[in-house]
């Protein structure tokens, strides 16, 4: 590997990310799968860094899942997006940040379509007006929320309590970064670092002390693939793709995986359990799996937030081995304590993979 070569590509793919004043939209599924990630994002940006991030409870789904399963036509989906933009416009913002990669890809696609075909934009404005009497401006800047964390990686590093380093050996942790397909594969110039060697997560992990590994199937999809998972008959195909990735990264013995997409961490995390139950194979050491983190969780850990506040007890794969490696202090007894004194139900433990 020639690191310089990558640096050159990274320098070619830098995008402008404004400093402040963002209109933020959440992801449909992340709030369920990784319930604390988006909260953590807001906590870091607002509380730690003092940025102005605006949220509104009136925003909806972007329509991406339905669109990618060909349940709704493009025009409908564009109108949904137009409504989100209208909310932004009404709130007086120009910078639009979204939490979901599917949405990010879709926003890029929509903006590009409007750019290439202004007549479509006119029609969508008309649709939106007819539907809900709203008007909108096209955002000045579009970013994925990982772009923002990437942008403030130095500020976060300055406030860091922990480094991504094995406290016993002093070696950097081996990090697998997985980028959601729709982040830059469709529009390489819209992603930090481009499509082939995306830098957005590499930048964070390396800045915070980790070492990113480049394994052969790095570019491969996590296996979700919308219909491939949602249609049960295709699910074997979905898990096979995930399996391929694990087989490929296995020889590198990664310490954890970090992702920036709603679906990827979910499938990389949950499928490890299914693979273990089907084949008996686990990929972490000592019968554990490889912990899968969102970038917000990674940032939260670095900043010293309580892992249970970061929602890491909702992971299928136990994060404790990773926490121990970094030296994060945590109280095992509080894992299922829950907020507001209401305890979380404790999960059953599977047969073939150690989950605690």
């Amino acid at each position, binding site marked *: 590997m*020639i690191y310089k070569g990558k640096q050159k590509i990274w320098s070619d793919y830098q995008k402008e990310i404004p400093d402040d004043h963002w209109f933020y939209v959440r992801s449909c599924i992340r709030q369920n799968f990784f319930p604390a990630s988006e909260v953590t994002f807001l906590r870091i940006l607002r509380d730690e860094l003092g940025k102005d991030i605006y949220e509104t409870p009136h925003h909806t789904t972007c329509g991406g899942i339905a669109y990618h399963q060909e349940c709704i036509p493009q025009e409908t989906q564009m109108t949904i997006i137009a409504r989100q933009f209208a909310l932004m416009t009404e709130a007086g913002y120009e910078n639009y940040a979204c939490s979901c990669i599917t949405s990010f890809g879709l926003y890029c696609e929509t903006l590009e379509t409007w750019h290439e075909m202004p007549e479509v934009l006119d029609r969508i404005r008309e649709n939106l007006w007819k539907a809900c009497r709203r008007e909108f401006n096209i955002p000045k800047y579009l970013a994925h929320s990982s772009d923002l964390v990437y942008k403030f990686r130095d500020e976060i590093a300055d406030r860091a309590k922990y480094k991504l380093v094995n406290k016993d050996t002093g070696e950097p942790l081996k990090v697998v970064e997985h980028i959601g397909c729709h982040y830059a594969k469709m529009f390489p110039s819209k992603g930090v670092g481009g499509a082939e060697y995306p830098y957005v997560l590499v930048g964070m992990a390396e800045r915070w002390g980790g070492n990113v590994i480049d394994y052969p199937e790095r570019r491969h999809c996590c296996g979700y693939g919308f219909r491939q998972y949602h249609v049960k008959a295709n699910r074997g195909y979905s898990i096979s793709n995930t399996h391929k990735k694990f087989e490929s990264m296995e020889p590198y013995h990664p310490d954890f995986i970090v992702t920036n997409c709603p679906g990827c961490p979910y499938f990389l995390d949950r499928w490890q359990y299914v693979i273990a139950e089907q084949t008996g194979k686990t990929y972490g050491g000592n019968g554990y799996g490889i912990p899968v983190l969102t970038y917000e969780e990674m940032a939260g850990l670095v900043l010293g937030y309580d892992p249970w506040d970061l929602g890491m007890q909702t992971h299928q794969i136990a994060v404790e081995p990773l926490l121990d490696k970094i030296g994060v202090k945590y109280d095992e007894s509080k894992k299922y304590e829950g907020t507001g004194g209401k305890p979380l139900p404790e999960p059953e433990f599977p047969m073939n993979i150690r989950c605690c």
Partner: protein
Amino acid sequence: MAKDNVVVIGGGPCGIEVSRNLRDMGYTPILLEQQPELGGHLRKWDRLFPEGVEARKVLKELTSDLKGVKWFTEVNIESIQKSRKGYTVNVDTGMSFETKALVLTTGFKLFPAENKQEYGYNIYERVITNADLEQFFKTKKDSRIQNPKTIGFVHCVGSRDEKACNRQCSKVCCATAVKQASEIKELFPDATVYCFYMDLRLFGRSYEDMYLNAQRKYGVRFIRGRVSEVSEDIDGKLYVKAEDTLLGKPMKIKMDLLVLMTGILPGDSTRPFAEMLKVPTGEDGFFTPKDTILEPCVTKESGLFVAGACTGPKTIPETISEARATAIQVHKYLS
């Protein structure tokens, strides 16, 4: 009777041959070259297809007799003024040349392989280009080539690829790939050599024999399918993904060496000259001559000629013929 000056810009095989022929006709050619030596890309090549003639010998032959040719290396053209009499060429060394006829033989450049990011040139150790391999054939030294057992050649890197902003076929890379595959097999007889092609476009006298030899004598395995991506394994070997389109199956091969057959693009100076001298260029960026069939060396501007690979990918013999034809065109124009 001393005849006129003719300025020739670009000291590759074409520029040299134009100058030599003009000299033979009694003109005083002034040959300007940006690089420290004459010879262009030919300097970097080891052998030429189809028979494997040594490039060194061809170059030696071309440069053996330059008496009467005024040639300057390491000169950059600052500006060119067109007047009624002809052209005034000003160069960075302070000299300027008056000429009635100006010949552009600015040649081509190889597609920068790193732009095809998925192939990982300059990122993965064992990915090299056709030019690198020629250099290795010349010097037998390259830290990246360590007795490889599996070698792949990727055709059409930066050619016939809209994503690489070059829709055109570079014409010479297929023949070069077949030549190089055979040559490397000769150096490493135990290696398995694969060529990944989209179409094999090598045509011309005895090229087919070269292809046949590569198949029969050297056992080079031709796979119809374009390499989609390359990645590196933990041991530093390359994973190459492609589809065998004749079998309709995706395939993955672990390789010790991957050679990218970079295509031909217009030289970097083509666009500045085109703008400076108002020579039209095609969508592909090469100079467009007055008439692509009957007057391939003449431009619409009077006294301005173009020859060689600056009007499109060409083989060396084609370039040489065109150079000689251009000299005659210049002579006709001047007399």
